[in-house]
């Protein structure tokens, strides 16, 4: 894959991104009440517990929605446009959603899936490309999705 725009982990998100480097899609889960939350944050909004763990998800989801951006875009994306971007909801908890890209193999480009073949509700599963070096910090991997 091309070197894209990588995330800048913070205290709350670092375990998620570390999981991606290890090939795991982790979901922050409250130790107090068991409720999952995404995006990650320090406190559980259901029970105000600060205790949480990171539980591997099934990695299986469904397309909740998608868009196809066209230029003008940031330089990192201009040459790849138009490309689809999806929101995926997890099978085991549809309230847990991720923005992501569709590919046909882990190292694929984000524009390799024909947008006209995409539909809301299609089943997908997560994959991870090899961690990317961008010279701005440690190597990062981001989750990507392949249709089942």
């Amino acid at each position, binding site marked *: 894959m091309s070197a894209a725009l990588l995330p800048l982990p913070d205290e709350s998100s670092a375990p998620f991104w570390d999981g991606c480097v290890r090939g795991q899609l982790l979901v922050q889960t409250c130790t107090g009440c068991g409720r999952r939350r995404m995006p990650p944050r320090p406190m559980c909004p259901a029970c105000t517990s600060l205790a949480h763990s990171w539980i591997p998800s099934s990695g299986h989801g469904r397309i909740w929605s998608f868009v196809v951006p066209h230029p003008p875009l940031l330089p990192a994306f201009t040459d790849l446009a138009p490309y689809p971007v999806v929101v995926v909801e997890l099978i085991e908890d549809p309230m847990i959603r991720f923005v992501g890209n569709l590919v046909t193999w882990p190292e694929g480009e984000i524009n390799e899936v024909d947008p006209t073949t995409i539909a809301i509700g299609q089943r997908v599963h997560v994959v991870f490309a090899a961690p990317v070096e961008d010279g*701005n910090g440690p190597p990062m991997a981001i989750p990507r999705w392949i249709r089942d």
Partner: protein
Amino acid sequence: MPTPLLQDATAIVGIGTTEWSKSAEDSEMVLALRAIRAALDDAGILPSEVDGLSSYSLESTEEIEIARNLGLGDIGYFGRVHYGGGAGCGVVGQASMAVATGVCNVAVAWRSRKRGSAASRPWAGVSQRVGGNPQWSRPFGLVRPVDEIAMLTRRYCHEFGATREDLCAVAMAVRAHANLNPAAQMFAKEMTRDSYFAARMVSEPLCLFDNCLETDGAAAVVIVAADRAADRPSPPAWIHSWAQSLPAQHQTMTNYFCDDPLRGPAWSCAEQLWDRSSVGPGDVDVAQLYDAFSPLVLLSLEGYGLCGRGEAAAFVAERGIGPGGGLPVNTSGGGMSEAYIHGFNLVVEAVRQVRGTSTSQTPDATWSLVTSGEGVPTGALLLRGGDR
């Protein structure tokens, strides 16, 4: 039920704008000064009488500079509201609250913005790594506001059966209003169904004409208490009720992580707004609905109860929101066809409607609704014409 404390306690008595352009020579400061000066002249109030200032947290013109340039008096209230295009009605509402409670007597609310040049677009400055909330979307190429709203739009169409034809109907209605407004950036440019569908895609399913304009300009309003409102040069636009809302579990713009993303901040804002009003959504004569993107008009029609959930497209088609429609919307041309000043020109136009001075005037407009951005923490104002 007792009358809510702030109902009709204040009024907008002055409005002012600069001209709208793609590339103004004036700085944002000079644009702000021109708009505020025009609003004070319109109100018949001297700059030295102003003691309250309210604006957006994104506003670049600072209170101290505004006050020192215009020769304002001692300022006793100054405040700002967050969340970009969601701020506008809260900016006016908070100023109104300060006036109603006696914290200040004459409040000015304003927004000045130079957005016409491509270099000024905030998302264009992103480089290297992205932190904060954008870390969950931008690394995947969801980089601009239009991409973020297009995601909700596709889902909306999926759930409620709306199509690009319905977005086209919104864009054309708003453009038809602009074609009556000589000050609108799109005054001389007509939009047809053919030209809409010929426009380039920006973020599918949204095309160029589903997007707001890029505008340099400024707008301002003057707010005073009821006892000072009646003897102004123009009829007062009473602030009958107002509301802000940052709903539970909301995330600004990429609001995909809550239970029901299509039930956005407009819904909870509307509950507050109508609770504090003596009338309901069915009484609204004319509406200015924040339209950074055409689908926000559909979402706002539903959120504020102007039609039922999922029925906005049918409402636009059957009742009509263009000139002469059953509920005229964005009668100056709105953000898509008059000017995009983060929604503050919508506030000015809502006042014109109760004054009877709009270029696309709704006959006998008494109840004039204006809303701020949907998809972000937002606000709304219900203005009323006539005697107090």
